[in-house]
């Protein structure tokens, strides 16, 4: 186990060192991000991060663009959260408006939403802890029970799909997303890790199509809060998950992001909806992003459920 005091070993990680330098030179307020991550999570974190950066952003130019995208993404999220602290609600937006502004806006998606979100899986402690929970519980079960295929409903960056494909060498996966940019980015990530023959993403709105797909293993990470009617989507997910199958479903709580529509104020609200849709909750983990800054301003949280 990591005991601290190893941050000097950052020099052993070439791409992480470059990212750290980029932050320090260009965005001094991001200067502690890499060393904090190393101090909190140690070599496992550094190894995973270095691998991701090396594979996805190998050149100086790609790394600089990803760093810039992440900083824009993170500052935008933080600014919206500050407003949420005062207002206590998300700005009212329709799904169609958000889709035009974000998911179907390829320039925005490729320049900062997707690289920002991808790097947040390593740079935001609550996101990283959630991926560790995914690996320690859901992926472990998939391996133990000999999973052969999975569905990822709402792939985003393709991060969890990629972890699944890496962990289980024979498994195949199908992802769904309404965003052509997400398809491109996720398939690029999987291809960069030499696993494209086992994975494809279909651009599809699962809620508005009669497509009949099912799987024993279902992933749907941080989709619910993006929807006007999460229940409709949850019923769809329930229909996708075969009897006896297992799902990993997550949601963001009190997290004011550009594309968050449905405000969950407590993990219990998600749990109730899952049960209403017909899922049985086996296990869950809720992780706040940070300690509350003000007594009446709850911090953002991510909650993950293992369901059957």
């Amino acid at each position, binding site marked *: 186990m990591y005991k601290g005091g190893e941050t000097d070993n950052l020099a052993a990680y070439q791409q992480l060192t470059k990212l750290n330098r980029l932050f320090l030179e*260009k965005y*001094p*307020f991001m200067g502690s991000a890499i060393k904090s991550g190393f101090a909190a999570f140690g070599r496992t974190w550094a190894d995973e991060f270095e691998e991701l950066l090396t594979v996805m952003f190998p050149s100086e130019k790609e790394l600089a663009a990803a760093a810039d995208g992440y*900083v824009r993404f993170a*500052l*935008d999220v*933080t*600014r919206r959260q*500050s407003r949420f602290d005062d207002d206590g609600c998300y700005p009212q937006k329709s799904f169609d408006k958000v889709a035009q502004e974000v998911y179907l806006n390829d320039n925005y998606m490729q320049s900062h939403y997707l690289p920002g979100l991808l790097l947040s899986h390593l740079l935001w402690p609550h996101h990283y802890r959630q991926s560790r929970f995914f690996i320690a519980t859901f992926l472990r079960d998939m391996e133990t029970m000999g999973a052969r295929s999975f569905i990822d409903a709402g792939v985003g960056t393709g991060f969890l799909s990629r972890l699944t494909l890496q962990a289980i060498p024979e498994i195949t996966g199908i992802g769904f997303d309404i965003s052509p940019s997400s398809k491109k980015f996720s398939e690029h990530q999987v291809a960069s890790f030499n696993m494209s023959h086992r994975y494809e993403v279909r651009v599809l709105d699962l809620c508005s199509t009669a497509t009949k797909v099912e799987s024993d293993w279902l992933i749907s990470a941080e989709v619910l809060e993006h929807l006007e009617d999460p229940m409709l989507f949850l019923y769809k997910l329930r229909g996708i998950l075969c009897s006896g199958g297992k799902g990993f479903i997550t949601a963001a709580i009190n997290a004011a992001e550009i594309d968050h529509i449905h405000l969950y104020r407590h993990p219990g609200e998600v749990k109730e909806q899952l049960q209403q849709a017909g899922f049985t909750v086996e296990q869950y983990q809720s992780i706040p992003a940070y300690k509350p800054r003000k007594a009446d301003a709850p911090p953002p949280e991510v909650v993950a459920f293992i369901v059957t």
Partner: protein
Amino acid sequence: MTNMENLQAIYREVLKKPDLQLTPELTARDVDSWDSLAHVQIIVEVEKKFGVEFDLDDFLAIRNVGDFFKLLARYGVDL
């Protein structure tokens, strides 16, 4: 309070440094509590106090307090 005193009060409050003196050269590297959360909090508090709203590109370009002085001047806030 003058605009400069108001600005200094915001930095001191957000960074939890009651004796902080603003200088144009001051950067996040000089203050341990000045991380990305604090950076945005400063900007949001300044927006509220001075009734301005910055573009994301504007506050991405802030490298030190001097840059912020210049940005405020562009938005009509004299220090």
